[in-house]
């Protein structure tokens, strides 16, 4: 297919000129954030899928499936844990990026938002209890 030459405006040159002009113009961050989201309409849908499927950790299985699962865990358990940890980090980062794009993210290190030591201690106790409970259930299976 031939390209035409006669009297043709140089599109790339005009767009370069437009880009130079807008570089100095003021565009509110909100406009830019909306723009980023709009150019990828499936962003929120895909983020929902990521949030729903990042968890590849070991699940309790009973019967034959449970026995096979425990055998496989001995071989693949460590890589699965690594993938699981990696997925959880990536999911958190993606959620954070989208919140920043939306303009709804709170600053990461806000003054006065230091964690409460008492609350951390309470959470640690609850976590110990949960781990023991999970261990018991896995033993039962």
């Amino acid at each position, binding site marked *: 297919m*031939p390209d035409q030459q006669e009297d043709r405006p140089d599109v*790339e040159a*005009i*767009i370069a000129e*437009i*880009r130079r002009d807008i570089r100095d113009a003021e*565009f509110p961050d909100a406009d*830019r954030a909306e723009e980023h989201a*709009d150019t990828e309409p499936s962003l929120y849908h895909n983020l929902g899928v990521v949030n729903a499927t990042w968890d590849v950790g070991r699940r309790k299985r009973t019967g034959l499936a449970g026995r096979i699962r425990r055998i496989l865990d001995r071989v693949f358990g460590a890589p699965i844990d690594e993938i699981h940890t990696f997925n959880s980090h990536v999911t958190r980062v993606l959620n954070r990026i989208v919140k920043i794009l939306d303009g709804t993210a709170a600053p990461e290190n806000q003054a006065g938002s230091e964690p409460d030591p008492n609350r951390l201690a309470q959470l640690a106790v609850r976590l110990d209890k949960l781990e023991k409970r999970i261990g018991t259930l896995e033993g039962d299976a």
Partner: protein
Amino acid sequence: MKIAFVAPFFGTEAAGGAEAECRKTALHLARAGLTVDVLTTCARDLHHDWHARFHEPGAHREHGITVHRFPVHEIDLTLFGHLNEALLAGRTLTPEQERHFIARFVNSFDLLRHLAAHVEEYDFVCFIPYLFGTTYYGTRLCPEKAVLIPCLHDEPYARLGICRELFQRVHKIVFHARAEEALAEQLYGFDPARSVLLGEGIDTDFESKPDRFRRRHGIRDPFLLYAGRKDETKNVPALIRWFAAYKARKGGNLRCVLIGPESVPTPPECRADILDLGFVSEQDKKDAYSAAAIFCQPSLNESFSIVMMEAWLCNTPCLVHGDCPVTREHIVRSGGGLYFTSYPEFEGCLDYLLREAQTAHRMGRCGAQYVRDNFAWPTIVRRYREHVFRT
């Protein structure tokens, strides 16, 4: 020379770019002296129940071509629905799941049986578009005669393993644009000798009257026009938000006119500036092209864009999203408008086209020349004869 077109849907009622292309190409090739058969289903189009017999099965003559219609094979679509959801969510299907998917995606055993029985009668068999059971299984029956017109764009379906197999299998592949061909090469890595960059035929002789459109709809102000389906896949909600942001920042008397099926939510603050006309007649659409200051095609997934070509034939400059390789290629090659990749660029392009009226008119004329030089029917028919139907 006898040619067959195999398409999942065929008829004036069938909505979609590939469906329109199939019908018009078949008719123009028949007018040029080729014997043309169309093998298709009884279904209306993708948006209506595929199992419903909108058309009667059987053969009939229509404008010099013979149309053979066959019922779609009835099959439970529950599994298809699940697989489709998974694909659109970005998951990868297993080869077995892919086979289940394509077997359920508008397939007709009767059509395939007919093709198998009559394939020797045809010199070439054209399959359009790439993603249907009729195309996937039909090309397996006659790979050495199969001409694939894929209408390909970058979407999850394009990454199915069966598509790679399809593109590797066929005799010739007809592309609409260099960007479409490049995408196929990147995804499937086929032998470039089998690909033909041909474009798509456009009716270049039509009349359009801008004043008639302005009078009919009472529009005096300059307007940005969009024509087509108004949904997410065409990126129209984003166009509405960009236009609303433009009006909020710049004011002015520019309006936005939308033509086509479905509706799109509009922000209350600029409802008066956005006019959604819904379905209009073909003549009214042509009049709208010539009345518009700018035609906008915001879609990211086009394999050609007929509406852009029609707007250009009315000497109207086009504004497209730069992240769509095909429409951007048209713009750069023709000089027929501008492209943007962000809101600030959208605003800058609108300002430029409204401010530099002479250049904008020249862009419209360059676009029209580009369409006449490359996509007029005599050119397309000649290319089919010389580059595709070569024995």
